[in-house]
């Protein structure tokens, strides 16, 4: 290593592990992540995997962040290069002063030459081949062994690791020993051959209590269970699949009669997304809470039915776990690029309520909010998650469920209520909030649901005035929605002239950027809308600022577009900060353009 000094830090290190997909490294990486978490140190885990099942390069990145940041760091301090195919690019990615660890069973000094970083060779295969029997065990234990190496190098608590192993393999105790041995092999080798710990290292903290590690899809699936959803219809698509997997898993566990095996839920694997959304509409119309998880291509296919639901006023909940478009795009990369297509899905004058969870915690709570809104507003609600939130491992405050939660089912008239009314007209605005009453099939009070022209009484019409009456009320209902959606989240630094607006998974990077900007003396406020239509506070936030940086993860400034259209924002004020290469957004990509803007004296 040349003149570059080694990086040094405590609890601020980014470890990236490059392997081959299908080689079983996931449990090793999870073990590492959890061990750090149990040491009380905040972590984020990000999975960069190919759209492929076996044999291609894949990476897992752990950011150890004593400060509790939640975004990707945008740098790699320690690269664990387990995949010879990607040595070259893995090598390149390490920060100057950082480390690269590789399996020196086959030394590659020539290939792995870089002056400004440290190369650490550990003969992992050799170690495992001599200690374990069978190809499968050897491959898997090699993964565990690099966890041991990292433990040795970074001072990760081996007792914590061993406790985790004991829990994980409680039902298969014979596996505990081999895993423990693999950890020791790596740990001892590191301790014996290298100066441990490295200048970057970890040390116990107390910053993770009251928190859990979870991905957004699991949280959203669980949220749907707690929200009381009973019907789930879906067509598999990356990265939304694990959401339904989670719903299924938790329902099986929590909603199956232990004696009879009868299920208090019904999951239908649809033939495609058109069918999935159709099923959601049918079930919602029938009065069940029903949802479908999907991703971009599915949204494109659901357009016709979403327009129907808007116009016929049928509740529906859709989770769009966004991926990198357009078209098939990069299914295993993240983006926030379905905002526009979701907000205005379908031909004709339509607009849809959107929710923007920023992490798995909000995926959980917003699931229930989505159903409450869909049923009270009688309209589709689309929860816009993304691959970063949905499939990565986030540290979030422990999930809580209010004991007194009661689903808000909206204006549903049962037989009794209906009989007490003089008349029931499906699309009549009785209460002045532009939300009509509905009845459920099977309870009397029949009406005819249709996507063709209808009047306020629910009758078929081709009459201009009757038609317009209904679509004007739908516009009024949009204003009712505006008043009812979750309020934005705001960080008012000091009522700065400059603000940032961002939604969803950009949140972590923005929060981190605010700190860095503040450190540079640049004060910026931050507002994170949590829903579309935008609450009045969003409009006010923009109105009272000179410049607003709209940070988003797409090419076409789709959030900025929505702000212009729905919050009457003056476009002259809205400066786009765009990130759309498919990787999770980092603080740096936000700090840099804002700081430049500030330097150029244009604001803040």
């Amino acid at each position, binding site marked *: 290593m040349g003149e570059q000094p080694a990086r040094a830090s405590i609890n601020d290190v980014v470890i990236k592990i490059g392997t081959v997909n299908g080689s079983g490294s996931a449990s090793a990486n999870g073990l590492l992540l*959890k061990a750090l*978490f149990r040491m009380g140190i905040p972590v984020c885990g990000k999975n960069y995997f190919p759209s492929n099942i076996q044999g291609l390069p894949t990476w897992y990145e752990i950011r150890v962040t004593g400060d509790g940041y939640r975004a990707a760091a945008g740098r790699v301090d320690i690269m664990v290069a387990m995949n010879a195919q990607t040595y070259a690019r893995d090598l390149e990615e390490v920060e100057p002063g950082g480390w690269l660890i590789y399996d020196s069973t086959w030394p590659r000094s020539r290939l792995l030459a870089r002056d400004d970083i440290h190369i650490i060779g550990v003969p992992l295969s050799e170690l495992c081949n001599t200690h374990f029997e069978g190809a499968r065990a050897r491959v898997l234990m090699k993964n565990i062994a690099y966890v041991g190496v990292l433990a040795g190098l970074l001072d990760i608590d081996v007792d914590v690791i061993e406790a985790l192993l004991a829990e994980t393999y409680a039902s298969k105790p014979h596996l505990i020993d081999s895993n423990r041995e693999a950890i020791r092999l790596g740990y001892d080798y590191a301790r014996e051959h290298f100066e441990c710990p490295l200048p970057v290292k970890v040390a116990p903290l107390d910053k993770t209590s009251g928190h*859990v*590690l*979870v991905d957004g899809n699991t949280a959203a699936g*669980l949220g749907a*269970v*707690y929200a*009381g959803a009973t*019907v789930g*219809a879906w067509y598999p698509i990356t990265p939304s699949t694990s959401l339904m997997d989670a719903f299924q898993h*938790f329902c099986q566990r*929590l909603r199956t009669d232990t004696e*009879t*095996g*009868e*299920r*208090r*839920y*019904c*999951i*239908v694997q*649809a*033939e495609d997304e*058109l*069918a999935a959304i*159709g*099923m959601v*509409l*049918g*079930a*919602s*119309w*029938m*009065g*069940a809470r*029903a949802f479908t998880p999907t991703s971009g291509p599915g949204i494109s296919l659901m357009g*016709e039915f979403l327009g*129907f639901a808007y116009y016929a006023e049928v509740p529906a909940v859709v989770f769009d776990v966004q991926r990198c478009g357009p078209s098939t795009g990069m299914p295993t990369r993240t983006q926030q690029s379905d905002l526009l297509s979701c907000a205005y899905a379908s031909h004709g004058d339509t607009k849809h309520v959107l929710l923007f969870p920023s992490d798995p915690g909000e995926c959980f709570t917003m699931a229930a909010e989505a159903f409450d809104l869909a049923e009270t507003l009688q309209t589709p609600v689309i929860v816009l998650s993304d691959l970063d939130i949905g499939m990565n491992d986030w540290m979030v405050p*422990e*999930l*809580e469920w209010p004991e007194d*939660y*009661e689903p808000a089912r909206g204006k549903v008239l049962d037989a009794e209520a209906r009989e007490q009314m003089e*008349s*029931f*007209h499906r699309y009549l605005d009785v209460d002045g909030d532009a939300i009509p009453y509905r009845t*459920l*099939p*099977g309870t*009397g009070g*029949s*009406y*005819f*649901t*249709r*996507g063709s022209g209808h009047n306020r*009484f*629910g*009758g078929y019409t081709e009459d201009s005035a009757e038609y317009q009456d209904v679509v004007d009320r739908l516009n009024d209902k949009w204003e009712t929605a505006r008043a009812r959606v979750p309020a934005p989240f705001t960080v008012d630094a000091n009522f700065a002239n400059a603000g940032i607006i961002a939604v969803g998974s950009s949140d972590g990077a923005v929060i981190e950027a605010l700190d860095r900007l503040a450190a540079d003396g640049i004060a910026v406020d931050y507002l994170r809308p949590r829903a579309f239509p935008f609450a009045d506070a969003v409009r006010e936030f923009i109105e009272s600022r000179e410049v607003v940086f709209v940070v988003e993860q797409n090419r076409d400034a789709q959030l900025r577009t929505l702000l212009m259209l729905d919050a009457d924002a003056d476009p002259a004020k809205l400066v786009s900060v765009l990130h759309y290469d498919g990787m999770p957004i980092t603080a740096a990509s936000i700090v840099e353009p804002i700081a430049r803007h500030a330097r150029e004296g244009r604001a803040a």
Partner: protein
Amino acid sequence: MSTSKPKVRHPNLPRNKHGLTFRDYEGAVSTLCAGCGHDSVTGAIVQAAFELEIEPHGLAKMSGIGCSSKTPAYFLSASHGFNSVHGRMPSVTTGANAAHRDLIYLGISGDGDSLSIGLGQFAHAIRRNLNMAYLIENNGVYGLTKGQFSASADVGSKAKKGEANQQPPIDPVSLAMSLGATFVARSFSGDKAQLVPLLKTALTHNGFALVDIISPCVTFNDHEGSTKSYRWSREHVHKVVHTDFVPPAGEITADYEAGAAIPVDMHDGSRVMLRKVDDDYDPTDRLAAIDFLQRHTAAGEVVTGLLYIDESKPDMHGVSGTTATPLRDLGYDALNPGAAALAEIQSAWR
């Protein structure tokens, strides 16, 4: 549509056990062309529902888009209706049924709606053995868009504009058999005597019951050269099976002859009797049914009647193991795992 519209009472009409008359099973006045086969099917539905003594609110009317799909507005006005988008009625019905397994689902579709844009959903509803009666009002054309050929148009059938169809037709009956449907029947809109009992059986079947109904379009497909015209149908339809249906609460009809009749036990305990015209026809023998159908089709005949029935197969909920209470009627208590469970789940997340 609203419930405040008063019904004219007809004091002298016979009433069924719910105190309802035949008229209570009607709907709004049809806006279809005078003489449209679909209106005859509407009439048969009204009669079947009345005779079955269905409680109107216990039935849901489902449809897609087309002249045929408009008809749910013309019967059972006291039932909820869902006129969905073109070709997608099966999925909406699947969702509705998932949410409420105990209603009777009556789906009305057209040949365009089910065999072109909706073919995939139609096939998958069959595969799920979705518990519903699925009626295709089959006229070989797209009526509502003014007479283009549909996928069921027969080769040589002429459109109003004069061009003859050259593409082989898709026969929903043959398709349903190949997809493993558990109830497959065909009839003709002009033959109420056959149609009404078939509809009653279909409405009572536990699972997917297809009734393909040749229903001529008088405006675009009822001239010579069209094989779905009234005349052609009357002449070429080959009736193989009659169905007599004994409603659950009805008297047992006195003397059906042993040997010539095959009783089939319906899911709800009622019993359907199938009278075979051909002595060697057995509607419970799938392979024979397929062979029979293919042979007659090859010979240019349209076989009608109850062609195949299997009451033994589980419907979608049977396969899924769903609880008996309709899901939408489960209280939140039965659905909420509670805070303790949440804590327990999360113990694995650290």
